[in-house]
């Protein structure tokens, strides 16, 4: 019983290959059944297919043979030759495979480290396999455990804490300034795709009122309807600014739309309630010196980009902590796996030895014509005792060593020495 992974991801394969090999969720069941059929030595299996990765997790008795058949299966299924496939795939076995799954589930192996979708994708891949009963004790435990590892990493590290897109970074800054965003008012000046994206995030965070100002009032009305907001006249900007906490600006104006004097006046009229200006226009709409006014915060597009960079660096730091956690969890899982393997290994060893004994007994008894039933019984007892005595020490030692770190290699060594196959 050995765990192997055959897979490809955004690092190992270009998108042309990934899209060719990806499996839609509708076809996943069929794919699993075909795998079961064509690779009968795979005792348990799960197929994970997302837009960034395709991976087969399987439990095989012989690692090399198992991987070869999985590769052949994958190549055949997608009409590729194995050599081409090998250019794009990676293979992990045993503890590396466990570690890999833990990393995938907790989003350490994702293109954007810490992204939240992958866990759900792994969960549904596992569910699909489970429903078809192609998983068993080992993969069930492995996947369930990977979910709890992912959860643990999410709560114990800051891996998913900070925004890694410009529009979400703006929302995060707003939260650093205001705390709770519910009940806050946002003013949009101008229009644009980015503005809508940032606004969407803000609305999701509970921003209450959305005002839209545009040089052309009709365009403002159009955008306001889209966000259930309120169109305001551009000429009334001063009045409207007073009730706004967050201002997102993206006009094509060649000059500043909000100057320092205006902002200073507005902030005084608002009794110093903070204002957050998000300026995504180039050339800029908000005079940069507005940032010097107390309780005014101005971020332009470059500032937001540098927030994203700093957040990515922060995530990378947190990822190292996560790897630490994973190492511990892998060790725990392996020790569980070894325990699982000890009992059947001992049973097989005993069965094999006894089979040899019985066979040799029969051969000998056939040749000894004059032997009495009583002598036969004595002979039988004696051979059984020899087998038991010889096996006693290996069995005891195996049980003892299974608890240690290299328990797995003990089990494997024993299986190889006695040629125990399964």
């Amino acid at each position: 019983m050995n765990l192997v992974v055959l897979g490809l991801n955004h690092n190992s394969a270009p998108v042309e290959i990934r899209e060719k090999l990806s499996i839609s969720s509708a076809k996943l069941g069929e794919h699993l059944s075909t795998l079961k059929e064509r690779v009968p030595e795979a005792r348990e299996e799960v197929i994970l297919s997302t837009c960034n990765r395709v991976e087969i997790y399987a439990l095989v008795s012989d690692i090399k043979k198992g991987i070869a058949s999985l590769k052949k299966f994958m190549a055949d299924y997608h009409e590729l030759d194995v050599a081409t496939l090998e250019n794009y795939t990676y293979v992990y076995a045993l503890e590396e495979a466990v570690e890999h799954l833990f990393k995938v589930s907790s989003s350490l192996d994702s293109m954007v480290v810490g992204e939240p979708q992958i866990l759900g994708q792994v969960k549904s891949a596992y569910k699909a396999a489970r429903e078809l009963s192609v998983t068993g004790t080992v993969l069930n435990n492995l996947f369930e455990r990977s979910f709890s590892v992912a959860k643990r990493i999410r709560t114990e590290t800051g891996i998913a804490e900070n925004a890694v897109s410009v529009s979400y970074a703006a929302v995060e800054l707003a939260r650093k300034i205001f705390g709770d965003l519910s009940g806050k008012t946002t003013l949009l000046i101008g229009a644009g795709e980015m503005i809508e994206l940032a606004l969407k995030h803000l609305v999701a965070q509970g921003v209450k009122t959305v005002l839209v100002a545009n040089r052309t009032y009709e365009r403002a009305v159009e955008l306001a309807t889209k966000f259930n907001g309120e169109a305001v006249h551009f000429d009334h900007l001063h009045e409207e600014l007073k009730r706004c906490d967050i201002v997102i600006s993206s006009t094509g104006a060649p000059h500043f739309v909000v100057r320092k004097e205006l902002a200073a006046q507005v902030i005084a009229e608002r009794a110093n309630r903070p204002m957050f200006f998000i300026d995504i226009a180039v050339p800029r709409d908000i005079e940069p010196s507005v940032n010097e006014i107390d309780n005014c915060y101005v971020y332009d597009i470059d500032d937001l980009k540098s927030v994203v960079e700093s957040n990515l660096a922060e995530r990378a730091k947190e990822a190292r902590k996560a790897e630490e956690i994973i190492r511990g969890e892998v060790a725990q899982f392996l020790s569980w796996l070894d325990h699982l393997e000890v009992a059947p290994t001992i049973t097989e060893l005993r069965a094999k030895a006894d089979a040899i004994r019985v066979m040799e007994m029969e051969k000998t008894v056939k040749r000894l014509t004059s032997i009495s039933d009583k002598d036969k019984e004595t002979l039988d007892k004696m051979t059984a005792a020899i087998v038991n005595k010889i096996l006693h020490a290996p069995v005891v030692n195996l049980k003892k060593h299974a608890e240690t770190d290299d328990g797995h290699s003990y089990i494997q060594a024993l299986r190889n020495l006695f040629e125990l196959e399964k």
Partner: protein
Amino acid sequence: MTATFALATFCYFIGMIKYLLHLGLRNRTLFILATVMIAIGFALETVGLYQRSLVTGHGPYTNVYEYLVFLGWVVFGVFLVAEGYFKLTPLGAFMAPIGFLLMLISFAFSPEMEPGLPVRAWWLTMHRTLSFLSFGAFSLVFAAGVMYLIQERQLKHKRFGGWYHRLPPLGALDDVNRVGIIFGFPIITVSALAAMIWSSQSYGKFLFNYSIAILLAGWLIYAVLIAGRFSFGWRGKRAAAMGVAGYAVMIAALVIHFGSK
């Protein structure tokens, strides 16, 4: 009782270290353990103060040792309530050191008890109790102010070091400032009035010395802050800075006051 206080101080120390570690590592377990340690320390200290008052027959107001221990108790008490109420995880890293330092310094003073000392004046006791309570509230305002100033600087200068990720939102910190002032200011005002009544009753005049002058300056800062806050909308950086400045003056007043004992 001194042993109980020592044990409580030890718990505070462990709690404080865990809060500081939590600030760096942001490990949830560390945070919970830290709060538990502080709560245990607080419970121990409460028991110690109670036992001591049974022996002395009065509150912990008779010497510098008692003042410091009692101040530490108030700081941790206010902290525990504030942490539960505001749910600001980094608060402990800023407030626990204040309480711990007070406890630590108390060891430099003689813990001797003065049993049977008559409760001299109701107004004096009132003054002392209230000024200690307000000290707790102002410690909270101070801690929030320091966090605010750091975070505001990060946001203004657009430098996103470790602090940016670790400190709470400005809005939440400004709330702490508001609530802390709302509680602290009336208490210290009543406390000052109580002191005046007591001094005029026992000496026939208002006492005036350096520590009272400085205390008055601190009170004035808080008075300006609360007036500015509620009539001119002073909030954010200015409120935070005034909270920090007022606290510095209060500490100076305390040092001189205790020094004169």
